[in-house]
């Protein structure tokens, strides 16, 4: 049968027009502004990445000493994992505020497990982290509560459990065969933990960009109702994203345990704010659906350069906190694309 067939009498029911008027889509202001913003943001990030070391080296040449570089790389590995943990929830338009507490809890549990069953038992912290993350995810998606409140609540609960099981004291890590895998460096330069963190980070990029579940995470962040209409199992995907976050936090906890050789129940607290800042600096807005894990590395590096630098030039801890807080807000101000988000609440 034919479609759009010209029909004779003009008084027949009019429905359609044959030749399509050529639609020239309106110039895409959204895209061009975003592209320009993206370029500016990249320039800003790279500039910060280069200027900070110059600035701190100028104040204290020790900044670029091999010892400090090693320490910065180890800090990077932990923060990068926490950034990886927080990325998927933020891409869904949710947020995980319990990442720091999960790091603490996993570190404490790993140290205790090692104490009882030998050092290799630290690895049990990995499935533990996964379960803790899934617990967050299940409360959020199956009971349908806002992630902000749920993870704020569980972060207190997890911190409490860490305090409880540790008795409030640092738990020493027993020595054992695994120490070498976490304390050595590749070619004597690159600490092995950084390699592990980079591997997990790369896997996360692939997971988000090249798997169906990764796609669904973006789709949920873009429009949760549309994702549902298209057959995305929204609840399951949410639970998985938070579970994966828990796994990353557990590895971060193990790394931090090996680098300090003792776990305190508040050991992960300091990572939450910098990790969110690094994610946002990396171009992933809190509204979700855009950005990704890749540029989170740059944000992580900048924050590590900054925190380490302040330490090395001998800034008092109080001043460090103030500067870090202000820098986070400044970073968000400079990198956050306010145009792409209709309402910022």
């Amino acid at each position, binding site marked *: 049968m*034919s*479609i759009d067939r010209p029909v004779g009498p003009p008084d027949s029911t009019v429905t359609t027009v044959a030749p399509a008027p050529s639609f020239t889509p309106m*110039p*895409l202001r959204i895209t061009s502004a975003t592209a320009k913003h993206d370029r500016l943001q990249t320039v800003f990030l790279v500039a910060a990445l280069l200027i900070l070391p110059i600035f701190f080296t100028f104040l204290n040449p020790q900044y670029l000493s091999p010892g400090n570089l090693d320490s910065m790389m180890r800090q990077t590995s932990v923060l990068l994992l926490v950034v990886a943990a927080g990325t998927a929830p933020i891409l869904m338009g949710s947020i995980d505020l319990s990442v720091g507490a999960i790091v603490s809890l996993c570190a404490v549990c790993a140290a205790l497990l090692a104490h009882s069953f030998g050092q290799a038992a630290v690895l049990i912290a990995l499935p533990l982290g996964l379960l803790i993350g899934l617990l967050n995810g299940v409360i959020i998606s199956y009971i349908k509560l806002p992630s902000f409140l749920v993870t704020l609540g569980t972060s207190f609960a997890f911190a409490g459990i860490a305090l409880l099981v540790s008795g409030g004291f640092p738990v020493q890590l027993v020595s054992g065969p695994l120490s070498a895998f976490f304390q050595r460096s590749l070619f004597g330069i690159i600490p092995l933990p950084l390699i592990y963190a980079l591997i997990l980070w790369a896997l996360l990029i692939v997971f988000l960009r090249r798997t169906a579940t990764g796609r*669904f995470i973006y789709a949920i962040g873009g429009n949760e109702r549309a994702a549902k209409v298209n057959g995305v199992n929204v609840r399951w995907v949410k639970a998985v994203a938070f579970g994966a976050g828990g796994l990353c936090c557990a590895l971060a906890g193990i790394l931090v345990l090996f680098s300090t050789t003792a776990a305190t129940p508040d050991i992960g607290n300091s990572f939450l704010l910098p990790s969110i800042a690094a994610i946002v600096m990396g171009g992933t807005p809190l509204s979700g659906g855009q950005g990704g894990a890749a540029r989170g590395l740059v944000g992580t590096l900048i924050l590590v350069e900054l925190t380490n630098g302040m330490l090395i030039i001998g800034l008092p801890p109080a001043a460090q906190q103030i500067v870090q807080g202000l820098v986070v807000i400044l970073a968000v101000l400079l990198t956050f694309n306010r145009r792409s988000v209709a309402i910022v609440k």
Partner: protein
Amino acid sequence: MESSSPILRLDSVSKSFNGVKALNSVSLHLELGEVLGLAGHNGAGKSTLLNILSGVFTADAGNMVLGGKKFRPNGYADANSAGVFRIYQELSVIENLTVAENLTLGTEKYIRRFGLITPKRTVKTAKAFLEEFGLGDLDAKRGVDKLTMAERQLLEIAKALYMARLGKIEKPVLLLDEPTSGLTQNQVDFLEEHVNRLRQHTAIILTTHRGSELLEWSDRIVVLRDGRVVGEPDPKRTSPEQLAELMVGDAVISQHERRNDVVRSQSPVLKMTDLTVSGVDKPFNLDIYPGEVVALIGESEEKTQIARCLAGLESPISGTATLGGTKIPSSVRGSLKAGVRFVPADRGGEGLALLQSVQSNLSLCAIAAENRRDLARSPKAEKSFVTGLVTKYNVKVASLEQPSGSLSGGNQQKLLVARAMTDAARVIVLDKPTRGIDVHAKSEIFRLIVEASARGVAVIVASDEPEELMPICDRVIAFRNGQISAQFDCRTGAEPSLTELAAAIS
């Protein structure tokens, strides 16, 4: 018409974008108390004209005179203070406030006493104002979330008049941009009646995609095409068909051929048995045959409820729907797996992630529900899949990477329909698919529907505008008072008249 000079006059107004003339020497005038209908499909220049009048753009050339004074607004606020108010299709009323609070929002200083606002005084002021303009039906104390869409539209209009009053503008010009979009016929009538009461206070420029409405509401009509005024037909002596022809120009008017060869002796693909849904409390049975196009019509939302139940987004109150003999599970994924594809009415809310690319929007359903996870793994496979859809169904995109929200409404709708037209689809359910899109895009959507039905897919369309579906649908099922009120077989020229359709639902 009064002998006095017109309240608004445009002389040879032109506007270009990147060398393309969006408005080419347009002249028109508007008298006090009249409704001037602006006709033309998307791209004809309607929006540009409204944008110039409301100060969003400034004209490149030409003169505008408002109330005897030169009028060249620079910005929306400027147009307001000169006396031109635009009522947007997307309403800006605030749902959690009352009618009175919305009306006085931003201008509280005029009703303050000793620096404080009292609810009583707010309501009193609003009430007096609404009654003066014959809009007393709007209860000043009522929460906006409890108003119908037509009432909200009316509130928005009242707000413009209120602003005009505060600005000491006696006779404001109102630009009503698609005020009836998404309204049911009852609501349209309600709105028309109330807008007519405002005539003595204002002059109105109206746009709507529904030709019959434009003819009914307007005292005069100006037809735009390619940025020019191409005709000023007398609304009393013009049929909707003639108006459509004028809008389209000398383009060939064609008709989709109805599928007369639907074989009803085949077993139905979709059977609804003793079904009741929210809004339809009397159980009904309905069989849908392969390749059939069926329109569901009705005054309220019952038709949408049926569509959403089939899609698994709502659960029926009782009864079952079976597809090819098996019950459709009442979950979205179950319904998709069974072969139902749903095109929601709310394009931005439920259809598309507007900030995300055309590509990721188009491939989502295949990845999530059609075992095409390979599309997520391989960008190459995804690109060829999406390119295939875009080419096959003629969706106009500049790039697959562009955000779907940057497409025109018509193209967004085509994107949604194209996504639904997969090989896995056995029944496609569309909820108000032509809402807010222009004549040309409508015809494209109809072409896709006919194409699907030619493949043997059953198509169900929940529609507020059954008359436009007449040429393509095989059956019309009308709902009224919670039950099926009439069924019309439209094959072989036996289609019901518009009066019959209207009678069946009201």
